[in-house]
């Protein structure tokens, strides 16, 4: 019988559908794994309420884990939870480094809430590492990103919003 840690390790093999360099555990989307005699309960939480990837993520989890749970005579359940609310602070430093290498400027610490309070945070260009960048739009290619451009290398890039 697999332990909760074993299931969590398996969940680390499920990539985020929009940001495939990160897995759903690193993203902070997997909140909890609860192992019972007859069942495995996985709680997931959305980055944004309307994130259209949530259904795909739940399906990916079911596709991967259901057969393994069945082998053990357990039933897999994937539940969506809203509390505690997802925050970019759950992205580890390792995950942020992967984001930047992938071309997405990672969020800063949100504990400083400048992003929400109107002050533009300084965002480093993930391509040429210049701090000489400018926000083009508060909203980007997905619900969790904003759109920036770099004044030094002139490239547009996505920035993971701080929430």
């Amino acid at each position, binding site marked *: 019988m697999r332990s909760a840690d074993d299931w969590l390790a398996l969940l680390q093999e499920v990539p985020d559908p929009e940001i495939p360099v990160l897995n759903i555990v690193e993203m902070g989307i997997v909140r909890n794994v609860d192992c019972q005699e007859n069942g495995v309960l996985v709680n997931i939480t*959305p980055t*944004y*309420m*309307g*994130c*259209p990837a949530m259904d795909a993520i739940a399906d990916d989890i079911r596709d991967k884990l259901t057969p393994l749970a069945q082998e053990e005579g357990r039933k897999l359940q994937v539940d969506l*939870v*809203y*509390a*505690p*609310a*997802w925050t970019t602070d759950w992205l580890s430093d390792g995950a942020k480094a992967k984001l930047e290498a992938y071309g997405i400027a990672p969020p800063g610490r949100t504990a400083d809430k400048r992003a*929400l309070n*109107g002050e533009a945070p300084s965002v480093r260009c993930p391509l040429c590492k210049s701090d000489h960048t400018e926000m*083009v*739009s*508060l*909203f*980007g*290619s997905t*619900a969790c990103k904003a*759109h920036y451009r770099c004044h030094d290398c002139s490239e547009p890039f996505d920035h993971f*919003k701080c*929430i």
Partner: protein
Amino acid sequence: MNTRFEYLLRLGDDALILGQQLGLWTGHGPVLEEDIALTNIGLDQIGQARAWLSLAGKAENQGRDEDRLAFHRNQEGFRNALLCERPNGHFGDTIVRQFLFDAYAVPLHAALAQSNDAEIAAIALKSAKESAYHLRHSRAWLVRLGDGTEESHEKVQASLDLMLPFAGDLFFSDEVTTAATDEGWGPDPSDLRADWEAILSDTLSEAQLRRPDAVPEQIGGRQGRHTEQLSFLLAEMQVLPRTYPDAKW
């Protein structure tokens, strides 16, 4: 009356109708960035609507889920505030409508986050982060347009004159909102008015916009008395699931 169901419907329907309207901007934004922004905000609203309506369905306990509630109610069954069903109009109209709503949603979600109902508080805490971001966007545009060119100023002033009378519906109080405060689910909307007024007055002054003289407020959405605009909106939103009730993506 199932007051808890009614209360949650109001929260869900505001988000649903506004989200549907913002979705209509897909491919029609004045610039690509705003096309993306408005539809992203719409997506957040639909996400919030889904959470509220799902909870409403549980409160009603008649087996209706969020999809059933969204797609199989008629106009009289909707409880959104009249402001949310005002047509998109031009970009300035949409920005004013969104600003008036966001300035209400921010204090609303802050108050609901203190709800003694854990499910309501969880949805509100999540929504609060999104509504703060939405307000930042709509407020910035209102200032930019109001304090912009002569033409943008005149147009957005006219949008404000047009939309403001419908905002009164957001603060409608009745037995449902009384039950909400008595039970500790959430605030009486009339209590949110001072916060809303403060955001409004601060922003209008920065945007060089004039608050229209007092006009009679249009009330009725919370009781299912809607403008004709809602029926057109519902016809478009509901046609597919009503024509093919068992259709699956």
